[in-house]
């Protein structure tokens, strides 16, 4: 009988390992965030933030401009978030191995980052019972407020772990390359990792997100952050892609697979750049070979512009399938510019000390430099643009200061951080020149203010809370946003 037992004992899977070293899971967590920020949410974000609109000569994203989406549209991003991003981050954190503190620290911070992406998109999402396999076969949905509490918690735990001396994940960390320190602020006695700066900047972003819905909490959180002596990002936290097939910028990779250019310049952002004489216009958009000048069409006007040749987003931002340099466009999880604009807002709200205009200007400069322009170009622009120095100088109230900051942040995020730009629009209502897509099918006065829960949850989760219409704001969202006429 022992012989029989041995004869039958062949069910060990030779094709797949049943354990994984945390350093091998980390790149997956980060690449998932890259796919979401750089592709799935990149398309929605850039279209709903009105940098881009559907091309009149293709059709893939018509429903996005129509605000007319089905739940199945969100199956894939939800899957990527939970099954590529969050679960692997969670498995790193739960790994019993020792000496892995730095890797686990990154995993905590990426988990916080990914949960923020998830809740900002969908509102209430599974967290406390999520990622436990059969333990909770139907995870309940947690209130967005609680999800944010967990985000703060994960960031704090991550920061603690980063400080413990441990194995350097090195190149397995696609964002910073492991235990890299920021030479600008590190001292021999106080070493500051880029990851610590990332954690602080993320925390600042998350608290400011609550500035409208729970100002007291936001203020306390931001103040405590500054009180701890937090340093913020001065470089882009980005994943760099290559021209190698499968390693390309995710949006470019997607477009090549589709074999067609679906997104073109939207007049909303395009005209705002133009009105400010912004040299970044020519960086964020690109002429077609048979075009003599850049041009754009009104958001959602693909049906009436069928014969117009419209400019494409540039290769710089990864959204031009005819330009091979799109392949190497980075995906910015948090940009240096964003870091400065967040700090500017903290100061403008009086929750931190400093010069909010100088910080905003640093944000503008960081954006210019990132697009290949010079700091001098930034200064010239800021001095002359109507949304530049003038607007900042005239900002007499916190609200106007925030308006000036978010408007500049909007310009800086064009093509790179569409989703975050749409988030800030939903939070603040700025910039105030966004219109209602002319293709909208969801009724007058309505805007897309969240994403729909995926069909896969509706059909498989017993605790599915029910669909929420696309025009209902999330918990932290501003309840009254009036689009420009």
């Amino acid at each position, binding site marked *: 009988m022992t012989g029989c037992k041995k004869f039958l*004992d062949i069910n060990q899977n030779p094709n797949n390992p049943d354990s994984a*070293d945390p350093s091998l899971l980390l790149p997956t967590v980060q690449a998932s965030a890259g796919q979401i920020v750089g592709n799935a949410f990149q398309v929605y974000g850039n279209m709903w933030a009105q940098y881009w609109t559907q091309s009149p000569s293709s059709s893939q994203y018509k429903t996005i401009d129509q605000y007319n989406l089905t739940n199945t549209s969100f199956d*894939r991003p939800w*899957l990527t978030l*939970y099954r590529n991003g969050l679960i692997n981050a969670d498995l790193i954190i739960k790994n019993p191995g020792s000496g892995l503190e730095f890797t686990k620290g990154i995993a905590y911070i990426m988990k916080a980052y990914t949960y923020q992406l998830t809740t900002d998109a969908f509102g209430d999402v599974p967290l406390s019972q999520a990622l436990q396999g059969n333990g909770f076969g139907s995870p309940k949905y947690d209130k967005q407020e609680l999800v944010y509490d967990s985000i703060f918690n994960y960031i704090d735990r991550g920061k603690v772990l980063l400080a413990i001396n441990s194995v350097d994940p090195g190149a397995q960390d696609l964002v910073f390359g492991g235990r890299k320190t920021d030479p600008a602020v590190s001292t021999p006695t106080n070493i500051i990792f880029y990851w610590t700066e990332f954690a602080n900047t993320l925390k600042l972003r998350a608290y400011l997100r609550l500035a409208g819905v729970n100002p007291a909490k936001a203020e306390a959180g931001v103040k405590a952050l500054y009180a701890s002596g937090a340093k913020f990002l001065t470089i882009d936290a980005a994943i760099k892609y290559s021209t190698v097939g*499968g390693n390309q910028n*995710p949006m470019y990779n997607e477009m090549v697979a589709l074999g067609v250019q679906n997104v073109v310049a939207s007049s909303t952002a395009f005209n705002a750049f133009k009105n400010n004489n912004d040299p970044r216009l020519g960086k964020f958009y690109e002429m077609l070979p048979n075009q003599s000048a850049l041009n754009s069409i009104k958001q959602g006007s693909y049906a009436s512009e069928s014969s117009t040749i419209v400019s494409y987003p540039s290769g710089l931002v990864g959204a031009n399938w005819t330009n091979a340099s799109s392949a190497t466009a980075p995906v910015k999880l948090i940009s240096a510019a964003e870091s400065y604009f967040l700090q500017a807002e903290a100061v403008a709200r009086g929750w931190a000390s400093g010069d909010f205009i100088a910080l905003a200007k640093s944000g503008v400069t960081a954006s210019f430099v990132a697009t290949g322009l010079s700091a001098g170009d930034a200064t010239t622009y800021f001095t002359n643009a109507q949304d530049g120095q003038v607007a900042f100088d005239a900002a007499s109230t916190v609200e106007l200061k925030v308006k000036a900051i978010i408007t500049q942040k909007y310009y800086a995020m064009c093509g790179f951080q569409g989703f975050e730009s749409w988030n800030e629009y939903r939070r603040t209502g700025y910039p105030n020149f966004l219109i209602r897509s002319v293709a909208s099918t969801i009724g007058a006065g309505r805007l897309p203010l969240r994403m729909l829960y995926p069909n896969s949850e509706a059909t*498989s989760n017993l605790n*599915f809370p029910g669909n929420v219409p696309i025009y209902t704001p999330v918990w932290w969202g501003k309840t009254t946003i009036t689009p420009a006429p």
Partner: protein
Amino acid sequence: MLFAVSAMAQQRTITGTVTGKEDGLPLPGVSVKVKGTKTGTMTGSDGKFSISVSESGAVIEFSSIGYLSHSRTVAAGNVINVSLESDAKSLGEVIVTANAIKREKRTLGYSAPTIKNEELVQGGSPSVISSLAGKVAGINVTSSSSTPGSSSRVVLRGGSSISGSNQALIVVDGVPIDNSSVIGGASVLSSVDFGNRGNDLAPDDIASVTVLKGPAAAALYGSRASNGALVITTKTGSKSDKMSITFTTSNTFSNVLKLPDYQNEYGQGYYDKKPANGKPETYTIDYRENGSWGAPFTGEILPWGQMIDGVRQTKPYSAVKNNVKDFFTTGFASDNNLSFSGGGDKTTYFLGLNSLNSNGVFPGNYDQFNKYGVRFNGTTEFSNKFTAGVSFNYTRIDANEVGGGQGAASVYNNVLQTPRDIDLPSLSDLNNKYNGYGFTDAKGIKHPNLYGYYGTYTQNPYWILQNYKNLNDVSRVTGNFNIGYNPYSWLNVKERIGIDTYSDRRRTLAPKFSFIDGDESKDQYPGNNARTNAGGYQIDQFNVTELVHDLMISATHKFNDDFEGSLMIGNNIRQRQTNSLSTATNSSGGLVVPGWYNLNNSNGPINIITDQITKRRLIGLYADLNLSYKNFLFLEATARNDWSSTLPINNNSFFYPSVSGSFVFTELLKNSSINNILSYGKLRSSWAQVGNDTDPYQLLTTFSKATVNGSFGSTVFPFGNVAALTAGTTLGNINLKPEKTAAFEIGTELGFLDNRISVDFSYYKSNSKDQILSIPIPNSTGYGFSVVNAGEVQNKGVELSLRGTIIKSSDITWEMFGSYTKNNNKVLSLMPGVNQISIGGFSGMTAVAAVGRPYGEFYAVTNMTDNQGRVIVDNETGMPIPTTTAQYVGNYNPKYQASLGTNFRYKHVSLNVLFDTKQGGMFFSRTKDITAFAGVSAETGGNRFGAIYPNSVIQDAGGNYIPNTTVGFIKQDYYTGSRPAGTNIVDGSFVKLRSASLSYTFTKEQLKRTPFGSFAVGVYGNNLFIWTPKSNQWADPEINSAGAGNLQGFDFTAQPSVRNYGINLKVSF
């Protein structure tokens, strides 16, 4: 001591073999007696006997149920071979049941119809599985395109497994063979039908097929036969027979059976202004278009296509009615078989050679299917009571399959979208500058990067045929070796080792190209209608090896004249090993050098799609007890225990029993007058349970190489030099237990008027529970699927076969037969809280297993209807309003099936005709969708502005639905827009002339001066005609894009099916 006794009696030992006269197969269990003595024995499973006689002149009597008794007087020799003639009256048919055990039909407690070779090959189909269609009740065969090498699926008594295979197990000479169906292409969306491996068998090598429908019949095969089994016996030679050489050749022509119905009123283009204020609509003629939404035909000569060398071609603006039909050509296949068979005193042999060479209905020599096979079956007896047999079969396939679906390689998809006024066959010359890709202009200047083909949204299908390849190379060996030992007449020991091993290598070639339109006018072709493809090369290599061992020890005992019994115990060990390796050039980079199809030509890292090996083993112990009383009461009980490697090691044992009985009640009425009418009557009943294991490696949760997918693209690791893993998709389950299927059957076989009329009826019910399912779980758990034991599926049904001989004389026999099958399938439960599991689906259409509904229900958004089933249309646009949620819109399983056939013989001419039908099933037709989108199908014709949607209602001011007589819809707006998937569900009912044949057999007299022993010539056909309901204007419902898998009824622009007809000839020497 034994020696002494035998020496003293001075006895002789007579040995021999008893065979059946009709098929030449050995007859087991024949009683062999020395007349007037008590000496007697029985033949073994190989038909052999050995008996002692004391003197010459003794008479040996041979008798067996179902055969006429026979006596032979012992003469000089010690060998007596006998062939018994069957006794038609007793219906004592001997059939091959589980484990190649021959049983007399009357003793069986379950339905087990048998189809003999002659009947199998009548229609000339090269597929054994397709040849079974309509021939027995309870069998559901779906033949897809009916071309050589295409898939055919066989399900007995409905599907019972939610996620596992539902096909019958195929057993050849006692050894189960693989019947994998791995559809080619990335998915059903771009499917390539490489067939299923069960069709590798050559029909000509087959002696008979017995259909074991229920689990009771198949209990001894255990787990894999829970869906029933096709028990195939291949041909053998006969002992002491001269060599007979037989040659058959079948030469088959084929053409397309059913194409969509077309509109012939409108041509290329689209409307740009609808009729308004008394003004008629206006149209744009768009030379690039694949749509036929243009102006009504006028017949005038108009330009079309691209302007090259300053010239745009012209043609009449009128319909080319047969432009799709004439694209297809007549296919031709030649199937040749040569066999040698015979035997010596102690040996038999059969050597069969066959070849099948086919060039299908697509133009040119691209859709090729070539199959070659050799089979050797031999048996020998040794003097020491040992016997041995060997069976060997080698098959090789070399083919190129044409791609279906909507991928770049799909020919049919492009054919269907040809505007009604364009003569597709005239575009076949790719050297013509207006037809091809890359051309030389009038000045002799080459333009390798320009194309002249008119379409910018479709490709020239002739060019696709020429440039895209799906090559297939299969090499397969199956066979078995067996040794028998007959120490005593009542004891038989048999050991059999079977093997099935094959390599299935597929290579997919996609060209690398980049063309832009070459039009000089630039008025309709602005110069940016690029046709590009990075190209690609993929190799899919599948290797499957299966080894089976069976040791069977059987003993028979006659307790007294009335009461007999036999017991068999056996041991079965099997191992199945699979190896799949799919590699391709980089998924985004494609090829570096066009035309060089080699992985070394990958533009970027090679894409390893699958690298998987699996191994599973199973040990089984079984017993089979048969008891018979007075030749009218029979009881069989089987028991089996399996130990499987795929289940948790402490829970890997499962036991399953079966019991069946048969009562031939007419034996009790033998002398009554009822017997004159009811000549034969039998009641039978059985109950069985079958256990089942699962696939390997379902117990643990694993990790895999990381790929982060977007909707179309993906981030693939290694990322530069960075490797990564990701949590697996499926949560394993360390607590799995075996699945269980319990089945009950009751039936009767009746023969009337000397068995001129016979009836076979069964009622059955089976429940499959604790199914091992991989169920979808919320992604928020971190995983996508969880392996569980859950679910119960029930099948209930009736089967009826009727056969009647209307005329029986020496010159004429005329026989009619028919069958009726009705299976009710229902999913009783799934998991707690889970009401529905997806079986698969595409384009918004899903086939599901839903609680309370039959397995395989279609589930999709469809048109909203009122409570009378009338379509609700929008008050302004007149277009149907879609439902807000998905609905159940039909099922692919037919409500019932039936067949009707006749065999007619007049002297040497025989005619066989078989019709079959499936009624009440539905199928999803993308052919419907795409032909409507392109404005070519009949439904898009007629009044295109303001026709009222059929059977539609509108809501009046009071909220009531009133018949719509006023609000018309614009067909172009509707059909080119997004219609819900549910509207592409089509009634799948059909009646087919499944097969017909007419043959003439020359008489011995006629052949006297020829070298031929026999000579027959005939014409035949299969899949000859189809009748579908009026509502099906698109396709043969049998075509299926997903091959022989569980996802059925999916016409995802699947290849059209073909009708086959030809001439055959059979000679023997």
